């Protein structure tokens, strides 16, 4: 909480250091985009595969698009992408900052009167809190495509492209997409704060870095799941 508050107070620094923010932003995008595509395509496909035959058997074929669409945009894309990013980017943040801590690079910054929170934490949290919601928008679209592909290809479902899309349009509204994107924004802040904090408190040598990375990923995932429930509860009311 302290780190989150100090980062929030230092937020104006992000504009001054926008080059560092862009650098981090592109690093997150480059490292994750392909994984996001693969993961969300198959999540969409699995959702269609699991729900499609059941709904079709009960004469609810027109609901498949809506069920798959809303599950992906409100729940699966934000949560699964956040877990992916916690593993892919959160771990890298904790490892990088942790190794800087162990090898006295952070002490060196302090002796130069450079605030490590301004220099290391603010650009990372700013970048991830922009990048993750964008990745989630992307994941939602690719997930829907995965759903469409499976519905069209699987002979137990056999729903046309038009059928899937019209079902989706019936159920999914813009506010549902915004709901998922907002969740991912909160999850991004959780990943950034937890990972940077674990990096900054790293002690010991390579073993300490390993411990920080593990804690960063595990704590981020646990908090994502807890906050997912809390946010869902709030957003439903």
């Amino acid at each position, binding site marked *: 909480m302290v780190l989150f508050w100090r980062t929030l107070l230092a937020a104006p620094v992000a504009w001054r250091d926008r080059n560092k923010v862009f650098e981090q932003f592109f690093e997150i995008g480059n490292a994750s985009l392909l994984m996001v595509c693969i993961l969300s395509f198959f999540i969409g496909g699995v959702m269609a595969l699991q729900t499609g035959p059941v709904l079709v058997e009960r004469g609810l074929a027109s609901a498949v698009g809506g069920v798959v669409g809303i599950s992906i945009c409100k729940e699966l894309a934000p949560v699964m992408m956040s877990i992916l990013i916690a593993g892919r980017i959160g771990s890298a943040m904790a490892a*990088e900052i942790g*190794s*800087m801590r162990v*090898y*006295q*690079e952070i*002490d*060196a*910054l*302090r*002796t*130069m*009167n*450079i605030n490590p929170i301004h*220099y290391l934490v603010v650009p990372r949290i700013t970048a991830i809190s922009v990048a993750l919601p964008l990745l989630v928008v992307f994941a939602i679209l690719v997930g829907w495509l995965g759903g469409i592909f499976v519905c069209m290809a699987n002979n137990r479902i056999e729903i046309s492209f038009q059928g899937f899309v019209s079902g989706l349009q019936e159920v999914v509204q813009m506010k549902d997409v915004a709901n998922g994107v907002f969740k991912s924004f909160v999850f991004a802040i959780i990943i950034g704060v937890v990972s940077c904090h674990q990096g900054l408190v790293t002690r010991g040598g390579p073993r300490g870095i390993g411990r920080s990375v593990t804690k960063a990923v595990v704590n981020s995932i646990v908090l994502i799941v807890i906050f997912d429930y809390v946010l869902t509860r709030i957003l439903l009311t």
Partner: protein
Amino acid sequence: MNAPPANQKGVALTVRGLRKSFNGQEVLKGLDFDVRPGETFVIMGPSGSGKTVLLKHLIGLEEPDAGEILLEGQPIQSPEVLAKYRMAMVFQSGALLNSLTVGENVGLYLSEHRLKPPEEIARIVAQNLELVGLKGTEDKMPSDLSGGMKKRVAIARALVIEPQLILYDEPTSELDPLSAVVIGEEIVNLQERIHVTSLVVSHDRDLAFGVADRIAVINEGRILAIGKPEEVRNHKDPLIQQFLHANFNKEALKSGVHLKQ
């Protein structure tokens, strides 16, 4: 931060009753000493004697349990002192930022505090790298450098700050004798050129007696002796004599006469 006038002399450092414990174990047991402006003061002692902990207190990375550290008579932790005087530290490992090039490392202080335009920073970086004998290495990464080169880059990074007090943590550790001499010469040259106050923490006897105006010998968190190099060399304390004359002697080892005896 205020820029000090060019060639401003070093500052006086005073340590009074400095104490520090970690997990109930007292590491610094009431240290008292003064470092005069423009002086090269060496603190030497065996590993684990509290030298690096002392240095971390001096640069503000650790808070003392008791005692005070004064820079020109004012507490070193006060924001006014930090704004008024410039300090730099050369870390034992160099502590270069591995994600930045040598040039970016050296110019980091100026670029982060936006003290100069980029072209001016590039000129200052080149100038300081040349001073430490590393001309043209701006675009190299720290991982491409040897241990000695890293330490010289760290010195160049410290020089860019135009410090009035510069702290060196084991500047010659892990270096071959030739590189150690180069680092020692850099410390002396720097002191002569900009009259900076230098505080060197080391267990390297050759370096200590080669660069020091005065030496303090520290052991188990206490100062055993302070004085000019000759005074320390002739000090009667058996621990100091043992530390100054410790040498590996294969013949003595074979005949069972060990250092501790």
